[in-house]
Structures are given as C-alpha cells and as structure tokens.
C-alpha cells in the first residue's frame, strides 16, 4: 500500500499531466483561431500596405493594431475603414502624429493671391510648401497661423513633423468693379490709384464743387451685379446712402472712412462711431509700423456685433461687421496717402497691399468651381473619423502580447513535463 506522500506525489504528477494537456489544448485552439479569425495582428507604417493585403486575402484577424509614424495615405485609411466595417477591430497608435489642418481661400483681389490658414497646436513648427518648393515656415500660435500666398499653385501643403495636410483651390472668384466716392483730395486720389495699380477696375465719383464733379466709369445702379465693393471716403457718399445700404444688405461690401461713417445715411451700417481725432505730427511713416504716425479717428463706440481688427493703444482704428449678408469695414485712418508718399522704399507696395486688403475683406464675389486635385486637408481628423481615436496603450486596449504569451506557455509546458518526468524517475516509475 502506497504511503500518503507517494499518493500526493502521484496526484501532483497527474495534475501536471492534466495542466500540460490543458495548455496544449488551449494552444491548439489559439493556433486554429489565429489561422482563421482570431488573434491581434500588428503592422507599422512601413509594412501597412502589405499587411492590408494579407488581412484582406490570407487571414481575417479579429483585431489589428497599426503603429503609425506618419498618417496613412487616403487609400490606406479607406482600406482600414473597410476592414473595420467588415468586423475586424482596427486600432491605431502614433504619438508623433500632430493634429493639423489647412484651409485655402482665394483672396478677392485681382492679384489672385490666396490666404492659407493652418490649425496646429501652439508652438508647432509648420512649413508651407507648394508644388515648386517651400513657401514659408512659422511657429503656430494659439489661433494657428495664417499666411498670404501671392501666386498659389495647384496645391498647398502644411507640414508639421511627419504630418502633411494638403489643400487646393476649389473655386475661382469672379470680381466686379469698385466704386470710389469722395471729395477731390489726396486720399481719394491715392486710394483710387492704388486700387487701379492693383488691377481693380474702378468707377469713381469725385466731387470738385457743388456744380462740378469728375466721373470715371458709368455709375448708375449700385448693385452686386456690377460692384464688388463701394469705398465711401467722406460725407459726399451720403448722396448714395440709400443705394449703398440696399447694396450692403444684399451682400455687397463697403469700406467706410471715418467722415463717411459719421453721416446719417451710412452710420447705421458702420462698425462703430467716430471718436476724437489723433493728429498727424508730420513724421515720416516707418517701414515697421507705418500707420502709427498717421492721422487717425478712433472707432468708438464699437457696435456690439463689430470686431476690432487693429488698435492704436486701446482705441480701435480698424473694425468690421456684417450687415445681413454684406460686410462693412471702417478705417479710422484719414490720410493713408502719406504712407505711400512719405514712407520707406517699399511704402507704395505696402500701401497698395493694405488698401487691397481692406477691399478683399469685404468684397462681394461670384465663384466658379475649379477641378480640384486630391487633397487631404486634415489627415489626423480624417483618420479619427474613419477609425476612432488612437489607442491609449502602445499595444492596444487588451494590453498583452500574444507572442510573449506563447513563450510563457512554452516555458510552463516544458517545466511541467520536466517536473512530472523527474518526479516519476525519483519514484522509480517509468
């Protein structure tokens, strides 16, 4: 009769045998599921395309995890989305992928430039490039960054680390004419000249005396079919007050100088009131802050729905608002011509850009759709929209590595067999 110790040892051996058999059975099941539809498959950016082909033709994994060092192409992204829709859980990780987006908006300007806006985390270095090469680089602020591209090409890329966001013009703007209304004076002359030099076709009504005026172009109806914007320089614009108000309320753009904003007819459209004049001391405008020395009338009080675009001290000097579908911008600078005449070497160009920029902010434009090349304006957002947010842990939500588990199972099996075999040898049983 066997002793209690021998019976216990025999029980232990049977337990080890049973454990080995159970582990072998489990491994068999796992192996079969891996060949069929079980397990988590891994891929990286470099091997993604090959793995996508494998997951679509060789195996049907229950789950895949993709570790990305750059965003997948649109095709790969769609492919992953299709896998996800076909009941393969797709998760991804990529800590170096930054959420950036780029938007491209043609400017209402005969120079045919475009504004590019980039959304990126503050402090991110962003490089702008087109099909020719690098255009500019800058660090994103809290509100992202904006850039003006004088000669946009087919596409514009915003590059932040490994992420490339691509935008392209969707439409071309159809520009109308401009109407300048003002008294004979230097501001009227130089504003008109700057806009004509920029390429705008300008109609002008310049008042010289109560009985005499100078008309340039055919001025009859003020409507969006003819004009992209009206520039009202002084009180003489009040004679068109009703027409201008109707024009703005139907979508037209209006640039108001302070004296015009003061008139009863145009004040309801103005982004703000007219404050006390800050005199020009006759100093030449500097290249770095040219408008600082110009005579200015602060825009105060500001209308509740207006936004200030520029200040001198705390006083708004440039402000804008919407009036129905129309847009109005008010400038407090009375003699911007001094900038052009008395400024530095680049003053005429900078003054022209500035005046054209005022008009571009409000101008009414028609649009013609353009054939658009493939774009990817927000790669990370598109990835999240397709696959959901990135996985928290590097290895996915399950938190284990099947390869490691296989090694552990192998070690346990070996150990159990060795112990069971050693135990039997010690007992003298074969």
């Amino acid at each position, binding site marked *: 009769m066997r002793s209690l110790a021998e019976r216990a040892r025999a029980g232990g051996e049977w337990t080890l045998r049973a454990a080995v058999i159970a582990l072998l059975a489990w491994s068999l099941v796992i192996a079969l599921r891996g060949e069929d539809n079980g397990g988590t498959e891994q891929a990286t950016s470099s091997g993604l395309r090959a793995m996508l082909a494998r997951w679509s033709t060789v195996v049907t994994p229950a789950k895949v995890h993709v570790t990305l060092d750059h965003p997948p192409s649109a095709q790969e992204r769609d492919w992953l989305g299709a896998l996800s829709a076909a009941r393969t859980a797709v998760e991804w990780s990529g800590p170096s992928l930054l959420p950036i987006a780029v938007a491209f908006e043609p400017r209402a300007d005969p120079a045919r430039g475009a504004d590019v806006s980039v959304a990126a985390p503050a402090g991110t270095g962003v490089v702008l490039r087109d099909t020719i090469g690098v255009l500019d680089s800058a660090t994103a602020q809290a509100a992202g960054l904006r850039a003006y591209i004088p000669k946009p090409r087919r596409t514009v890329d915003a590059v932040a680390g490994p992420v490339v966001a691509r935008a392209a013009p969707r439409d071309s703007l159809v520009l109308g004419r401009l109407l300048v209304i003002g*008294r004979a004076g230097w501001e009227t002359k130089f504003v008109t000249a700057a806009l004509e030099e920029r390429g705008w076709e300008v109609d002008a009504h310049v008042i010289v005396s109560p009985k005499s005026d100078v008309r340039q172009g055919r001025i009859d109806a003020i409507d969006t079919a003819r004009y992209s914007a009206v520039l009202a320089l002084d009180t003489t614009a009040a004679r068109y007050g009703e027409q201008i108000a109707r024009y703005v309320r139907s979508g037209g753009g209006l640039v108001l100088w302070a004296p015009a904003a003061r008139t009863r007819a145009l004040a309801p459209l103005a982004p703000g009131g007219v404050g006390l004049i800050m005199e020009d001391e*006759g100093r*030449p405008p500097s290249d770095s802050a040219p408008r600082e020395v110009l005579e200015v009338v602060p825009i105060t009080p500001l209308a509740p729905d207006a936004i200030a675009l520029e200040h001198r001290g705390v006083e708004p000097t440039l402000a804008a608002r919407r009036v129905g579908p129309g847009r109005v911008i008010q400038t407090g600078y009375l003699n911007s011509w*001094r900038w052009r005449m008395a400024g530095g070497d680049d*003053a005429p160009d900078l003054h022209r850009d500035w005046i054209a920029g005022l008009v571009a902010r409000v101008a009414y434009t028609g649009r013609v759709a353009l054939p658009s090349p493939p774009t990817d304006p927000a790669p990370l957002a598109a990835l999240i929209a397709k696959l959901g947010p990135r996985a928290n842990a590097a290895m996915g939500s399950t938190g284990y590595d099947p390869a490691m588990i296989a090694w552990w199972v192998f070690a346990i099996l070996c150990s159990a067999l060795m112990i069971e075999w050693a135990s039997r040898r010690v007992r003298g049983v074969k």
Partner: protein
Amino acid sequence: MSEFVFATLEYASGDWESAPALPENLIDTVAKHTSIDIAPVGVNVKLGFPEVFNYPFVWMTGHLPVRFTDAERRNLKRYVERGGFIMIDDHNHDITGEFHKTAHEEIERTFGRMTRLKNDHELYSCFFVFENGPPNTNHELNGWGDNLLHRYLDAVLVNGRIGLLYSSKDYSSEWNFHAETKRTMQDDPTKFGVNLIVYALTR
C-alpha cells in the same frame, strides 16, 4: 494733412521764389470756384528734404540755371513715381534761356525725354474747358522772351498720369499779380491753375 496745401518748391540753385504772389492768387481762384478743402496760405518746401513728400502738388519756377543736388534729384524721381505732381514753369518764357535749358537737362537726366501733351488731354477739360490747349499768356502775346507762342505743354507720364508738367508759357509772370488786381480783370487768368490742381487731385 487732409486739406490741399499749395507748395512752392525750393531748390538749391536759382531763384525759386521769383513769383511770390502766385500762390495767393491761385488759392483764391480754387477757393472761389471749387469745394476743395484748401489751406488759405501756401508753404515753401525744400526738394532735398523729406518734407516735400507731404505735399503731392508743388510749383517750381525760376529764371536762373537749375542744378539739382543728388538728394534733390533722388527726391524728384521718387516724388513723381509715387504719384506726386510737379509743375515746372519757365519764368523767362525763353527756350534759349538758362532756366529752360538747364531744367530740361535735369528732367531728361532723371526721367528721359518728356511727352508732348495733346491739346485735347483731360488736363484741359477736367474743370474749366480750354479748347485750344494751354491758355496763352500776355507775355507770349506781347512777344517777350523767345517771342514764341508755345502751343503745347510737355509732361512726364507715370502709368498714364501726369507726374511732371513743364511749361514754357511763363504762367509765373502771368499769375504773379497783386491780389487786388484780380477784381479789375475781365477774365481771371489763373483759371488754368484750377485745372492743374483738380487734375492732380483726381487722377
């Protein structure tokens, strides 16, 4: 800075101040016929100094030879290219005179040859209408100076606009009268000056 200020151009050589009563007469005519916001008195500005750029219309005249300094030449070019309007009038009314010859040399050195303005140019109709081009002066009609009737004015054009206008007609003598005299005149001879200013302000 919003108002129009009549500016007489000072230059280093010559007698730039040879028509001291002209600004007053021209200012009077502009104020009488237009609603242009014009300063009641004119100023003198030095071509060689940055202040000249605060006055986009300047009147230049004289009898003596004109020799610009480098700074004056540089400012003149920049002034015209940026949209300023300079009227240069030969106070000698003499195309063989020193002012005419030297002023022409300076202009051609800075801008190249001037363009002869046609007499139907808008300069002659932008306010008062002068059907035959630039109005004649008594000095021309009386045979003084070079004893010629100058039927055209010459100009430097920038983007189609007049930037510099040159006259051999001697408006500097014609308009340089005592202000009280205007009351006794049958027709105001300075009316063409209004066209110059209206053109400069509107084109």
